[in-house]
């Protein structure tokens, strides 16, 4: 028979703080990131498969676009688009599926039994998703760079691209927040997530620059698609040779910065509202 060794247990009210301290926030946040990375390690086979399939997909796309040839003028723009697309695909899907999985198994409710506000945990999930997206995105980048270098080309690098890269990551966090919030209430919205990925693939300017699209499509893409302004800016810097402050395509630096902030703002507000609805309807743990 298993027994508990009686120790000085807590019987009366626990020591409480109405607002957790900064250390508790940091602890909870890093705890969530740590959990995400443990799950990433547990699913290493899946990551390995993605690290192979995504670069293959990229090379096949460039081949098809080049009518059976790897054309140099398509490789670099295509690579920049594909790395971004891989990133958003992985980040959104990992955040979404981890949330849905927790909901389906019922463990999500346990994660709500914390003194911390849920946004802390969502943020932790997002950071874990960003880190989890890196292996696939970096493998695409690596294969792309090797291909370009092998064909006698040069892979340019400019530290300025860190700004649009950050914009893509933050904008994607906003999108993931919206999708996770919708999942809390409407549950089976996998189709929306997958459809949105297809839309980003087409309308994000990953392979066809927005300038080559109809004006209305380009306008809506720049306005709504989290990766579109970022990809456009990266191409402008690395392919066009322009500086961050002198971007020639798109709506300029201000929109590259503002769009992810707006998307995160919408994501935070919407997630909070949908979470309230879920608490009211009792759908936090019901699938």
């Amino acid at each position, binding site marked *: 028979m298993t027994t508990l060794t009686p120790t000085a247990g807590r*019987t009366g*009210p626990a020591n409480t703080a*109405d*607002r957790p301290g900064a250390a508790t926030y940091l602890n909870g946040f890093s705890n969530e990131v740590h959990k995400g990375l443990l799950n990433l390690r*547990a699913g290493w086979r899946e990551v390995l498969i993605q690290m192979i399939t995504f670069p293959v997909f990229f090379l096949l796309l460039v081949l098809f676009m080049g009518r059976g040839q790897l054309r140099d003028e398509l490789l670099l723009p295509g690579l920049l688009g594909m790395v971004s697309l891989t990133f958003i695909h992985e980040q959104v899907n990992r955040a979404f599926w981890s949330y849905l999985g927790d909901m389906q198994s*019922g463990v999500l409710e346990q994660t709500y*039994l*914390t003194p911390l506000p849920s946004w802390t945990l969502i943020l932790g999930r997002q950071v874990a998703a960003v880190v989890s997206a890196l292996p696939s995105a970096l493998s695409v980048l690596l294969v792309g760079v090797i291909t370009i270098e092998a064909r006698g080309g040069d892979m340019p690098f400019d530290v300025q691209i860190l700004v649009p890269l950050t914009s893509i990551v933050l904008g994607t966090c906003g999108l993931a927040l919206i999708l996770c919030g919708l999942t809390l209430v409407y549950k089976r919205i996998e189709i929306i997530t997958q459809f949105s990925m297809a839309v980003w693939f087409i309308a994000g300017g990953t392979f066809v620059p927005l300038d080559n699209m109809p004006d209305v499509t380009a306008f809506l893409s720049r306005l709504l698609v989290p990766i579109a302004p970022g990809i456009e800016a990266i191409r402008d810097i690395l392919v066009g040779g322009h500086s961050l402050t002198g971007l020639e395509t798109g709506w300029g630096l201000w929109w590259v910065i503002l769009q992810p902030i707006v998307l995160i703002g919408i994501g935070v507000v919407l997630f909070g509202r949908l979470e309230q609805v879920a*608490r009211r309807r009792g759908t936090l743990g019901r699938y």
Partner: protein
Amino acid sequence: MSTQTQAPAGSDRPGAVTATPAIEISGLTKTYGSSDTPSVNNISLSVPAGTVFGFLGPNGAGKTTTIKILAGLLAATSGKTLLNGYDVTRRRSATMQQFGAVLEGSRNVYWTLSAWQNLLYFGRLKGMRGADARDRAEELLKGLDLWERRDEKVGGYSRGMQQKVAVAAALIADPPIVLLDEPTIGLDVEATRTVMEWIRTMARDRGKTVLLTTHQMNVVEELCDRVAVIRKGEVVADLPTDQLLAQFRERDKYEVRVEGNLPELSLPSGFTARSVEGTTIISGRVSDPQQVYTLVDRLRDQHAVVQSLSQVQPDLEDVFMGLIKAPAHD
């Protein structure tokens, strides 16, 4: 609806704190969506600290809804819930530090992580420092005989072991209140016994308040100081366990064994007969012992040979069935 209640008394267990009820529910109502029927209808309960409180009811009676409202996972339509005096809707952070919970029908812990990783995760989720969480996790895993297998994924454990990890995760931050929604569901006899022993230890030796729902009446009868029965969202009884049993003992059940298979016997109203292996067993509840003598006289008149006459004490299952089947009074 008539409700059998008595003001709860404080527990005399060591460490029990009785000044503020550990759990207090007043006028709680929950209606889902546009439904006309509330899942929980104006219920009020008060659980003194250090009590093991059995919250019973048939499926769909409103037990889980009540627990989820207590835990802040579900918003009430109206009413108030307090855990150690903290209102989850107003002081969520403080309330969350008052309890741990094992929720019904959920995995409760991550099956892709090991028991050790789960306990550290949930400990830090509850605001514990890493070192404290490790010490506590070690204590719990050793106490539950899981220490040797702490690094294995929970998904590979047996159902009983998984439930042990869920209980350990609920206790990781050493909360004064523990909410256990069907903690023994699906467990074999040994695992059920282990969880029961844990609950007993938590309450008797550590003074914790335990709110327990289960369909296993023997668990309730053995562990609970007090029992509330909920039916169709309304509390129909809320009494100390012994008083609840005593109250139903007033309408004791009698059993008379008669030689032979005699299904054609004429019996007074309220008694039924069944034949088992050459014996006729006649049973029924009586409000007046005279009814038993009437029965025996009637049997003698029919030349039946009475083998035995015994008084059958009601167990909690009888009480429970009586309460949930009793007609509702509006």
